[in-house]
C-alpha cells in the first residue's frame, strides 16, 4: 500500500523537480561533457523517495530538470549510489 501511494504522490509535489533516468549513452555524454568520473558527480541514494518509483539501480544517472529563479530552467545530474 505504501509503495503504491508513494509512486503516485511523491514526484507530484511542488518541491520535487522532474527526475528521469538517462540511458547509458547519454550518461557517458554527460560525463564526457564535464570531463568527470561518476564519483565526482553529485550523488543521490537509490532509496531517495523522488526516484523510488522509477526503477533505478545503483550506477544509473538521473537528470533533474529544475526550475530556476535565475535561468528559468536548469539541468542537474546526479549519480545513483547505494546507501
Amino acid at each position: 500500500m505504501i509503495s503504491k501511494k508513494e509512486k503516485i504522490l511523491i514526484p507530484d509535489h511542488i518541491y520535487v523537480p522532474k527526475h528521469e533516468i538517462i540511458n547509458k549513452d547519454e550518461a557517458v555524454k554527460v560525463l564526457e561533457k564535464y570531463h568527470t568520473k561518476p564519483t565526482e558527480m553529485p550523488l543521490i541514494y537509490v532509496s531517495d523517495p523522488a526516484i523510488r518509483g522509477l526503477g533505478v539501480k545503483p550506477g544509473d544517472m538521473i537528470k533533474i530538470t529544475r526550475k530556476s529563479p535565475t535561468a528559468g530552467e536548469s539541468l542537474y545530474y546526479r549519480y545513483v549510489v547505494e546507501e
Partner: protein
Amino acid sequence: MALETIKVIDGIKFSVWSPTEIRKYSVAEITAPETYDEDGMSVQGGLMDGRLGTLEPGQKCLTCGNTAARCPGHFGHIELAEPVLHIAFIDNIYKLLLTTCRSCARLKIPQEELEEYHQIMKKEAAYTVISIKHIPTEIIERAKKEKTCPHCGKSQYELIFTKPTIFIERTELGENRLLPITIRERFSHMIDEDLKLLGYDPTTARPEWFILQVLPVPPVTVRPSIILETGIRSEDDLTHKLVDIIRVNQRLKESKEAGTPPLIVQDLVDLLQYHVTTYFDNEVSGIPQAHHRSGRPLKTLTQRLKGKEGRFRGSLSGKRVDFSSRTVISPDPNLQISEVGVPEAVATKLTIPEVVTEWNIERLKKLVINGPSKFPGANYIVRPDGVKIRLDFVEDRETIANNIEIGYLVERHLSDGDIVMFNRQPSLHQMSIMGHYVRVLPGKTFRLHPSVCPPYNADFDGDEMNLHVPQSEEARAEAILLMRVQDQLISPRYGGPIIGALRDFITGAYLLTKDDTTLTPQEFANLAMLAGFSGTFPEPAVKAKGGSLYSGKQLFSLFLPKDFNYVITSKWSKGTKGPVKDVVIKNGQLVSGVIDKASIGAEEPDSVLHRITKDYGYEEAKNFLNSILIMLKQFITGYGFSYGYADLELATKTKDGILENIQESYDRVYDFIAQAKKGTLQLSRGLSAEEALEAYIVNELSKARDKAGNSADKSFDETNAGRIMATTGARGSSLNIGQMAGALGQQSIRGRRILKGYSNRALPHFKENDANPDGKGFVKSNYREGLSTLEFFFHAMGGREGLVDTAVRTQQSGYMQRRLINALEHLKLEYDGTVRDPHGHIIQFLYGEDGIDVAKSDHGEAFRIARLIESESIIDSGKKATKEEITDLVKKYVKTFNPRLSKTVLEALLESKLSKEGVDKVCKKALELYDNAKVEPGQAVGVVTAQSIGEPGTQMTLRTFHFAGIRERNVTLGLPRLIELVDARKKPVTPTMDIYLEENHKKSKEKAIKVAREILHTKISALISSTETDYSTKIKLNLNQDKLRERACTIEDVVDALQSSKKKFEIEPSGNSITLTLPEESDTQTVLAMRNKVLSTTVKGVTDVERVTIVQQGEEWVIQTSGSNIAKVWEIDGIDKKNIRTNNIFEIAGTLGIEAARNSLINELSSTLEDQGLEVDVRYIMLVSDLMCSRGYLQQIGRHGIAGTKTSVLARAAFEITVPTIAEAALAGEVEELKGVTENVIVGANIPIGTGTVDLYMRVVQDG
C-alpha cells in the same frame, strides 16, 4: 646570488611510528633525568643532550655539525621499562579489543562474510562511494556483539573500559586487568586483511604500535629552554614532562630488577602511564591535570596544536606579518575615496623595495641621502651580491648614494601614490580589505574618507585599522587590478553599490539641489573648481535682481555624464508624500527633484550612483563620487548646518497635546483591563485571555507613542535640521525625532513590557498589580526634557538587553561565518563553468544556474533590457520593426542566453517601439553586457558565497521568537533560524507546516476547519475534565462534552482508541465517562503509570501536530500547524498533496527526496534573510544549498558535515577536533595531497584559487 631551486611539497603522508622506526630515527637514548650539570653544560644522555640539536647561535650540533640557524634538531628516545597505551589511539584500542577474538585475534565475524566485505571493497564500483565508508562501522557494530569467536570457537569475555586507560576483562574467575603488554601481544597477531576491513593501513599503522614501548624525545628546538633576566634557566613544559617520565621509568626499572612486590610495580606502571598520557594530552578527562610548579597546568603536545592559539590556527593558518602597521583611524573628507592618509612616522618605517634603473637612479639617490629619518627617504640598500646595508648605521650617506649602481635595490619609504592594502577587523567580506593609494600626511592616525566607512563598517570612536604594504610587483599589480576601492563599489552580496554618499554629504546634496538654492557665479566657479571640473560653464539659469545666478541643480549636473538619463523617486519626496519619480535627469541635466540618499546614498541599489557605475564604469563612478563629495562637503560647510537643543523645542500647546493623547491612551488601557475583568473583552483566536489583554495594551501604547512622535514631528517645519536629515536619509528617522521631542514610549525586555521583578510589580515603587502603564515601563518623557528616575531605570533595562544582544550575536554569527568559510573556501569556478571542490567533485554544473557573477551583474541581472531599450529609443529614429523581424533578430543573439533571459529580452523588445537597426543594436549591446557579466574561471565563488551569507548574520536580530502572520504561531527567525538551517538539524526548534487544501475544500472555512480537526493531534488528555482512580484496579475518565465537540470527537472514538492500544483492561463506557478495569490488582505506581499512558493515547490526528490554525490567504483557506509530520498528513483527505510545506528540511529530505530538500532549503534561507530586510543574491543561497545536498543526503555546514568530510587532513585538523583527526589520518595512512586552500596556506604554498590557478610563462628569446 646563487640560484636557489624552489622545492614544492607534493604531499604529506601520515603514519604511526613503529618502535623500530623510533629507534632508527633516534640519535641518542635519553636516560638521565638531569638536564644541565653544575657548570651549565648539557648532560650526556639527558634531555638537553647536544646530539638533539642546538639552541645557542655559536654552538654546533653534535649530530649534524650545523649551527643553530641550520640545524633542524634530531629526535632521541626513551626505552620504557613497561609498555604504556598511547592516549590518542585509546578509542581505537578499545574498538579493536571489542571486535577481535581474545585468543586468535581475528575479527569476530565469520570468514565468508569477511570475504564478502572484501569483495565489496575490492569492487570499487563507483556507486559504492558512500556505502564503502559504512563498512568499518558496520563490522564494529556486528563484531562487538559476538559472544563466541566464529574462527576458533573460543568464548569471549565482557570488556570493561574505565576511562581513560584501564581495560578490565570479566572472566568466570573474576575481573582481570588487561595490561598493555597483553593487549600488545594480542594486537600483534591481527592479520592485515582484518585491519584493512576496519580502515587501517597495516603498512603505516599496526595496532600494536598504539602501545608504546619506546617513546620518541623531540629535539631541543621543539622545546627550547629560556634564560630569564635573573639568569635562571627555565625549561619548556614538554621538558618538564619528559623529566617526569624518565624519573618514573628509572624507578620502575630499578623496582623490577630489585624484585619489588608486583602490586608496587603495578602502581609505578600506572604512574608511568599517567605521565605518558599527560605528556601527550593534559586535558584528558578522568585524570588530574599535570601542573607546573607555579600551579599553572602544563601545556603539552595536544594543547600545543589545539584551538585558536594552537599551532594550526594560531601559527600556521594565520601568521604575523612584516610590512604592516596599525593605528587609530580618523576621517578626512578632503581625501579621495581611494586614498588613505598615512602618518609620516609610519611612512618612514614601512618600505617598498625598488630596483635601481637608469630612470630612477637620480630619485633614489636623493632618497638615500635623506636616509631613514627624513621623509621621503630610504632605510636599506641591498647590493646585487645580497649584502644589505642599513642606512641607520651609515655615517656618510652622500658617498653611499653616489656609489649606487643600476641593479641595486633601495628599500625606500612609503610615499604618495603607492598602493597599500587597508583592512579593518572583523574581515567579514572582501570589502574589508581594499587597495588604497597612499597620501603621507602629518599627524598620527590613518585618515580615510568617511564614504568608505560602510564597507569596512568603521567609525571613528577609536577604531583601529591595519595597513599592509605589498612588496612584489605581482602583489602590487594584483592589488591595483582587483582590490582598489573603486573596483569594490558594487557589493557582490547583492550587486548594488556599497559605497556612496552618507550623513552630511546627503544633507549637503539636498540643500544644494533643492529648488530655491542659488549660487553666485563666484560660488559656482569655486565649487566646480574644487571638484575638479574642467570645461565650459553653462549659462546661469536663474535671473535675479543683482545679476544672473546659477541654480544648485546646475552645479550638481556638471558632474553627471552628458548622455545620462534617469528617473527616480527621491527619499525626500517619499517622506513628504511628494510626487513619485520626482528626480528627473535628462541628458546629464538634473531637471527636477532633489538629490538625496535614494540617488547617491551608500547601500542603495538602483540609485543614480548605481546607474552611473553600471553604465559608465568604475572609473567614471569614482570620479563622479570624488567630485560631488568634495563639492558637497564644501557647500554644506559654507551653508552652515547644525542641529541642537533649540531645534527640538515644541510649543506648549503641542506638548500639552502630547500628554493629553497619552492620557487618553492610558484611559483606554484601563478600559481594556476593566473589560477583561468582566470577561467582555473580545478574544482573538489562539490567545488566552491574559495574552489577548496584553496584546491590546501593547498595541494601544505603541499607538500612543506613535501619536506623540508624529505630533512632535509634524510641529517642525521642513527647514528643521532634524526633519531634513530624517527625510533625506542622511541620519536618523522620524522615530528618533519623536523620541527626542515627543515621548520615548514603551521599554521592553524580550519583546514584552517589563512586567516582573518584584511580586506582581516591576519595581518596588509601584503598587502590586498596578494597572498604570507607567509601572510597566512606559516612558512618557522624551530625551529633550529628560526622563524621571523610574523611567530612566526602565530605559536602562531595555538598553542593557540591547547590549547583551549585540554581544551574543557577534559571537554566534562569527562562528557561523567561520564554519561557512571553512565549508566553502575550496570551491572555485572551473573553466567549464562548473563549481567544483579541488578534488573535482561537482557542486554545480553551472554557477548560479546562469553563470552570472553577481558582482558584475546589475542588481542580480546580467543586464537591464529596459535600460538598453530606453537609451536606444532616444536616438533611434527608424520605423518600428515588425514582430517577425524582432523575433528573428533576437533569435540570432540569444543563443547563449538562458531561457528566462531570452524570454524577457524578446518580450521587452516586442513591446518597444524600436526600429530594426535599434533592435539589432540593443541585442548586440545586451550580448556584450551578458558576456561581460559572466563569472571568470578560477573565481573563489565559495568564499564569496560564504561571505555573502555570513556577513549579514551580524546584522540580524537575535530575537528567537516572533509571531508569524497573525500572532498564533511561534516560529524561529533571524540568526538562530539561519544557524539552524546551515546546521541541517534533524528537527528545527519550531517545526511548522503550511497545508494547502484541495480544490473543493479550500474555499470554505467550514471544510477547512473539518480538515484541520483531522490533522490536530488529539490525545485523551485533551478531551477529559478529570480522572478518578481507586489506585488498585479502576481508572475512570470523565469526558468533557465541550472539548469533545471542539475536537469533533465522540465517546466511541475514545473507546476505539483505547481498544486499539492493546492494553489489558476492560473498557466500560457509561454516559460521559469511561471506566477502565485492570485485570488484576496493582500497586499505586503501576496504576498511575497506566493512567498516564492512557491519557497520552492518540484519539485522532497526526502525531507531533500540537496546534492548528486556519488562515485565509486571498481566496483560499490554509492550515498552519505547530509541529510537522508530512508523511502522516498525506494520508488525510481534503488536503492538496502537492502543496504541503514544512520548515523541517530534514523531514523533506526523508519524504520527498534530496532535490526537494534543496528547494525548500533555498526557500527557507531566502525567506529568513528577506524577513530581516537583508538582500542576498539567490545564487549564493543556491550554492550553499547545492553543496549541502551534493552527496545525496543533507550535510551540515560544520564539523559533522562538510568540514568533517573534507579530503584534506590538514584542512580538517585546522578547523576543529585537531588531534583526533591527525590520529585517524595516521592509522588510515592518509595522504595529504595539498589541493585545497587551507592546506596550502599551512605549508606556505600558493593557494590554487583565483590568480593562484594560473601561472605566467614567458618565452625567452635567445640572444643573437
